[in-house]
């Protein structure tokens, strides 16, 4: 019985461990196909938000993918409140986020635009 419990415990640990490790790997080329909803603001140098406060939208190309995904998740969860970004992030899966992060982190991104 103890053995069964131990095995079950180890199995559930292994499952938890793999779930934690399973942040999906991003694919920059797939990210490129999902970028349309980002371009209208983040693809235009100098673009500013109009609501609820006016400021430049952040430059996101070249940003760390890990932070990029965290930011999108924070919008999706409501932890970050920008209305447009909340709406957009809510439509993204974990895989979409990873792909977009990979696209924007790709080396060309650091030099394109100004």
């Amino acid at each position: 019985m103890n053995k069964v419990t131990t095995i079950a415990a180890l199995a559930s640990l292994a499952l938890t461990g793999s779930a934690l490790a399973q942040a999906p790997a991003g694919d920059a080329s797939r990210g490129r196909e999902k970028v349309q909803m980002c371009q209208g603001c983040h693809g235009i140098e100098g673009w500013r938000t109009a609501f609820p406060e006016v400021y430049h939208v952040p430059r996101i190309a070249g940003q760390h993918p890990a932070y990029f995904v965290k930011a999108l998740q924070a919008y999706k969860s409501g932890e970050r409140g920008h209305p447009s970004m909340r709406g957009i992030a809510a439509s993204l899966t974990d895989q979409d986020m990873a792909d977009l992060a990979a696209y924007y982190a790709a080396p060309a991104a650091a030099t394109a635009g100004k």
Partner: protein
Amino acid sequence: MNTLITTLALGALALAAAPADARDAAAGAAKAKEVCAACHGMDGNSATPDYPKLGGQHQDYLAKALRDYKSGARKNPIMAGFAGALTRQDIDNLAAYYASQPRTVSTRY
């Protein structure tokens, strides 16, 4: 008398408004060394994947992020502590400083 009050009120407004508009990147650098650089790098080119690169980011976006951390509108236990200790002037100075650093982030279509 009314004119005097108006004049005094306008004067006070002008004084109150002035410091918020003045950004001192050199003072921002000193504050950055003290508060931000350990995680975000002195030049804002953070070496840690979880911490955003700040160098060359828009000044007004950086300032807004810090104000939101300070107010709690943006929730992050680490940044709440740091931003909470900053004055409005510190925030404007820091944003000016990191915005003036070499570009680590850019616009991409």
